[in-house]
């Protein structure tokens, strides 16, 4: 299996939001965004890919952090210093964002307490740094409950379930395999919109095909593999 990052429709939409926030035109109006969706839809992977291939910073999840710890983490990600005092952290962030406008991804934001989200809203207003909150379904209700944050969200995006087209594209790109329509439907139903079951199925399909020296996948083989998973 080839290891490739796939440009799905979700990823394209995610990227357009990030580009909009990074652009200086987003200085007019709020520059917060919210990306939600159940686990396994590729939110974190898309954020990491965007971070690695650009100037954005990714703050890894850690739900035991206090607001000052989050501030220090952002200051370190942007300016490579970790000042003790929050005021110094703010000035570091301010200086770094003034030098270069960089996007900040806050992953698993649904697990963060509301006071951290409020602090990030303040940070966004004070330093004009664009922030993207990434989280599961709980994030939507959490933000909706706080009017001050909700009204400042510029763009909202829901990672939609993966489509049959995405699965077909994945098999074509990573396994050089064109799946019959019924097998595609079967895998799509099994995945329930999640990438992880598709990946597990693809790994097992490739192993089975190698072991049996097959060139094409049949419905029976796919059924057997999915049943064993």
């Amino acid at each position, binding site marked *: 299996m080839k290891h*490739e*990052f796939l440009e799905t429709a979700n990823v394209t939409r995610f990227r357009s939001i990030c580009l909009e926030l990074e652009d200086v035109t987003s200085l007019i109006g709020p520059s917060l965004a919210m990306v939600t969706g159940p686990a396994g839809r590729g939110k974190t992977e898309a954020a*990491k890919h965007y971070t*690695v*291939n650009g100037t954005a910073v*990714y703050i890894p999840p850690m739900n035991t952090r206090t607001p000052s710890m989050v501030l220090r983490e952002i200051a370190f990600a942007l300016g490579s210093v970790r000042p003790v005092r929050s005021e110094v952290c703010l000035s570091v962030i301010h200086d770094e964002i003034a030098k270069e406008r960089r996007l900040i991804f806050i992953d698993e934001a649904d697990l963060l307490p509301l006071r951290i989200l409020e602090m990030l809203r303040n940070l966004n207003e004070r330093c004009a740094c664009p922030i993207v909150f990434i989280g599961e379904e709980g994030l939507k209700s959490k933000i909706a409950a706080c009017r001050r944050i909700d009204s400042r969200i510029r763009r909202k995006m829901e990672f939609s379930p993966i489509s049959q087209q995405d699965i077909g594209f994945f098999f074509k790109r990573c396994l050089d395999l064109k799946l019959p329509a019924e097998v595609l439907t079967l895998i799509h139903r099994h995945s329930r919109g999640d990438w992880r079951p598709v990946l597990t199925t693809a*790994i097992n399909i*490739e*192993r089975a095909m*190698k072991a049996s020296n097959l060139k094409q996948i049949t419905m029976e083989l796919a059924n057997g593999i999915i049943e064993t998973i």
Partner: protein
Amino acid sequence: MALSKPYKGTSKTGLSFCMRKWMQARSGSIGARRFFSFELYTALNIPPGHEREKARNALRDFVSRGEVTFRFNRKRKRRHFSYNHAWCKTQKGDFKRKIFKAMYVLGSFSMSDIRRLTNINDRHWIARIMRSLIKNGHLQQISRRLCAHGSGVEKVYRVVHRDTFKLNFLQ
């Protein structure tokens, strides 16, 4: 503007550096920023002959890489140069930086993860970088796992100290 230390015709002189510094220092309106080549040679005390030929070649290189632009001055029948302040050196080592950033963002990873995030297909090159990082104690192998295709295993590594790693490789 004359530099405090005039250019001397020794080998590896930093001629381009002196020229760049002089050209960058010209400020004001576009008319004031423009210069003729003889103004540059005079300001840097470059003697006529072989030395000036070297400076002329250097100026040609500046033009070819877009650092200096010119237009023909009909009145004086000479090229009128101006320094392009927006020019910047091509950033080298972009792929290497991507690899380091991917390692930092992932924390623990295998080579396939790095290839997926960075879109770099040359696994031998990634392996070479990883080997040197392991040798210097920045990465540590934590486990092994089956490759996705089923034959063989791949090693899983972790960044030993994330902060030090960032300070050393992502500044």
